[in-house]
């Protein structure tokens, strides 16, 4: 095995172009488990922790450009107010030790159906910035980024540079089901965002389908009901039963399986409950902000 340790972004892209078989590693919270348990033996590791460009976040044309190597601990400490949904998800990741190392870029690279950041990024309409030495930079909406179980839209010579997230115009929520508050791989998870500026609703369903996915029909239903009743303007209370119906429609977007963490039926049930609660909490926050 080779250990490649580029110290600049240009070197990292050149290394990935030359060695498309190299497995990128940042915080190591997924990759090192696979190595320790002999589940994976890549020909090369591509250590990205010495690339300073990946560790930065900055405003970029009205969006926050979150470098792929920014840790969950820093998302919580530095961006909790500007990326509230992602920060809520970040607080549920593993333990302090894991949040000190794990990165949003690594979460996207692993592309687990249960990745904690994914529902929040989906609800916020985040965009993944991908780069290669040969073709430069391209942007992929996070909803198109996941292509299968632990598979994503990266070509073999590409690396994840950053995630672009617009700061929220309305409240965001994140819910996750597990056996305790720490060290949980989600049984199921749900991300929610109100976009009052464009009268839309954002959703993200985690750990309940082969890939993280949005619940677009449910989101359109809720946004349409809010519009029809003039609630975006009046900020009046939600009509009785609307949040519960939204929850049922979110459930319909999922395609879960039975596995060691939970049954498909339980995942469907929890999704409908989480979606109802998230919509209610977010709407209440929206009303209070008036």
């Amino acid at each position, binding site marked *: *095995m080779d250990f490649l340790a580029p110290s600049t972004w240009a070197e990292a892209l050149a290394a990935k172009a030359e060695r498309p078989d190299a497995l990128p*590693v940042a915080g190591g919270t997924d990759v*090192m488990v696979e190595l320790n348990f002999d589940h994976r033996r890549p020909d090369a590791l591509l250590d990205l922790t010495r690339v300073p460009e990946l560790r930065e976040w900055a405003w970029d044309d009205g969006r926050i450009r979150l470098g792929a190597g920014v840790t969950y601990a820093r998302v919580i400490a530095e961006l909790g107010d500007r990326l509230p949904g992602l920060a809520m998800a970040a607080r549920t990741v*593993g*333990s*302090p030790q894991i949040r000190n190392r794990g990165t949003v870029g690594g979460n996207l690279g692993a592309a687990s159906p249960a990745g904690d950041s994914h529902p929040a990024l989906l609800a916020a309409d985040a965009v993944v910035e991908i780069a290669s030495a040969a073709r430069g930079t391209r942007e992929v909406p996070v909803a198109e980024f996941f292509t299968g179980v632990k598979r994503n839209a990266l070509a073999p010579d590409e690396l994840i540079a950053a995630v672009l997230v617009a700061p929220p115009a309305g409240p965001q929520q994140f819910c996750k089901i597990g056996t305790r508050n*720490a060290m949980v791989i989600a049984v199921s998870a749900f991300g929610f965002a109100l976009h009052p500026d464009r009268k839309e609703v954002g959703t993200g369903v985690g750990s309940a389908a082969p890939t993280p996915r949005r619940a677009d029909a449910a989101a359109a239903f809720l946004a349409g009901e809010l519009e029809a009743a003039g609630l975006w303007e009046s900020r009046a209370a939600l009509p009785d039963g609307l949040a519960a119906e939204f929850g049922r429609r979110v459930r319909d977007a999922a395609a879960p399986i039975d596995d060691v963490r939970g049954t498909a039926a339980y995942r469907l049930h929890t999704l409908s409950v989480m979606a109802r609660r998230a919509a209610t909490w977010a709407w209440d926050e929206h009303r209070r902000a008036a």
Partner: protein
Amino acid sequence: MRIELTVNGERREADDVWEGESLLYALRERLGLPGSKNACEQGECGSCTVYMDGVPVCSCLVAAGQAQGREVTTVEGLAGDDGLDPVQQAFVECGAVQCGFCTPGFLVSTHDLLARNPSPSDPEIREALAGNLCRCTGYEKILDAVRAAASAGAQS
């Protein structure tokens, strides 16, 4: 490959490091520092917690090569010339050790907590130690020890 790093204030190097091996393995098997314990090897138990560049991490999830040039402090580096660290002393006095396997990780995590937050509330202690598992004590004595170390720090 060879790695060079600072461990407990000393420049150290290790040869013949396999490119896929963890910092934990390098510390225990190549640098003669068996204090950090190898239990789950997947970041679940916290027994291998060390400081890397001042931040607590699971050393089983750090590739040894990622520690090249970094500063690592293990449980062996907590005690000073004048004896045990107050956190270690509190664990001794409170009987917060049963089999002892999880203790090095709890010591490093507690040391970090009290450095950041000298008088933590119980929920803050629980949150800070959420990544460290003990299968013997039921945590009560451990929580006693953290509280004792905090009040010892407040009195010193």
